[in-house]
């Protein structure tokens, strides 16, 4: 068997999917997190519980939703609850094992900005805002983050703390009385990052196949740290890749219109 060809974005989604376990209860953000969670469900984690903030619990969509409230999510859910209940009983109640977030801007401690570029009161770019993220970041037992690397996205200092990661690092979470783990995994199109046990700075633990340390640094706005042993991410299997591409094809066809 020849090795399948794949894009960095496909590698990112598949690497993220592998981090999810069969008994995880995931609060799924739209975009890359949604793809990763559903690939996990369609491959090694068939019983994973996917929750979207629209109130759908235990969904199994055949195509990726365009929004967090597409009908497909409700049609395939175990149950659908009102939004206040979602945020009170399920998120705040501590039932979510993994909160899965994307980001417009992120710093090395996993703090995320999706609010504004520039000053809050007179922004250069007004982004959509936090939505569920401020509480997903603190009430989920752990947080996974996924984004494609760029100097614009991975910055030394974010413009606005939409959601709290490890703050200034170290025990900053505990100091604020937050008893959840926070960001424990960052998956980009180039690498897998985990927080240093002490400083909590995101550190590269695995490079995707063919990616160099220089490539990672060139697309990151802070000085990148590498773990003592940096592994190579196993490339996508044929099953993973076929599953992802089928899902994307079904999704694209569905979203193009009725």
């Amino acid at each position: 068997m020849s090795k399948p060809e794949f894009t960095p974005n496909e590698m990112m989604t598949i690497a993220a999917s592998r981090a999810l376990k069969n008994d995880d209860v995931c609060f799924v953000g739209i975009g890359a997190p949604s793809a990763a969670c559903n690939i996990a469900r369609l491959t090694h984690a068939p019983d994973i519980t996917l929750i979207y903030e629209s109130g759908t619990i235990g969904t199994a969509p055949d195509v990726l939703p365009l929004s967090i409230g597409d009908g497909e999510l409700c049609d395939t859910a175990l149950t659908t609850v009102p939004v206040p209940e979602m945020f009170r009983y399920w998120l705040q109640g501590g039932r979510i094992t993994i909160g899965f977030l994307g980001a417009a801007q992120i710093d090395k401690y996993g703090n995320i900005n999706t609010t504004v570029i520039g000053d809050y009161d007179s922004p250069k770019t007004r982004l959509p805002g936090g939505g569920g993220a401020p509480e997903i970041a603190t009430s989920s037992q752990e947080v996974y983050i996924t984004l494609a690397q760029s100097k614009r996205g991975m910055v030394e200092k974010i413009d606005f703390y939409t959601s709290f990661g490890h703050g200034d690092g170290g025990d900053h979470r505990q100091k604020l009385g937050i008893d959840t783990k926070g960001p424990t995994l960052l998956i980009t199109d180039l690498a897998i990052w985990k927080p240093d046990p002490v400083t909590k700075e995101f550190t590269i633990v695995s490079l995707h196949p063919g990616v160099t340390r220089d490539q990672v640094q060139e697309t990151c706005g802070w000085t990148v740290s590498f773990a003592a042993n940096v592994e190579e991410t196993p490339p996508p299997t044929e099953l993973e890749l076929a599953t992802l591409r089928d899902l994307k094809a079904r999704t694209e066809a569905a979203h193009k219109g009725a």
Partner: protein
Amino acid sequence: MARFVPLSQAVAENLGNGDSVAFEGFTHLIPTAAAHEAIRQGFRDLTLIRMTPDVVYDQMIGMGLARKLIFSYAGNPGVGLLRRLRDAVENGFPHKLEIEEHSHAAMANAYEAGAAGLPCAIFRGYRGAELARVNPNIKFIECPFTGESLAAVPALRPDVVFIHAQKADRKGNVLVEGIVGIQKEAVLAAKRAVVTVEEVVDDFSDLHPNLTILPHWTVTDIAVVPGGAHPSYTHGYYARDNAEYLKWDKIAADRDLFRDWMQKNVLDATPEDFVDRVEKLRDAG
């Protein structure tokens, strides 16, 4: 006690310049027809409230109806940013827009508190989040038993709320099903509530006892507007028009294109136009 009236009358008699108003819907059941009617009637100085302002709020802001926006996520869901909203916030076009920004958890709790008749909601939120710095309506209190610091926000109590629902019975009781979002709380939190529905049925007698039903004495007015949630969807009736959401991104990017689109599709249109817009989406609903 709910009346059945045409949508134009329901909007005219329940909404006023300067009101705080929520057109609620969490992706599903967005009351587009009601919002378009409000645009046609040309209201001004509204405080627009909604967890997820999307295309219809982009349209209302672009048409200059809004003085202030209270929200938690302002995006074209799954597509990107709201370009008319950006133009207002970044460039003050068509005029300046005041912003009160929350998280989803805060907005959901604030509506819930409004429905529950409380002056405020408390929740475990905003820890380490910068919105607490820029929004004076976010405060913190101490749990009187554990001493834990908890976030507090004032209850939301809109002057009027518009929602779209599947159906009403002849007494004016309203059924909402599928992704029910925050609509029940919004209706119960509001001083006046207007519901557009797909249809009116004789009764609900064959339904499950625990469904989301708004008793007729919680609803001010009901207008029958088939397709009234388009391009959003109505569970059991028609599917979401995702292609329209994708198209909006280009329309809203240009002030003239936007104005032309609004003239043709909103200002020169009527509530009766919605039924045709969902025709091709009924099989998938």
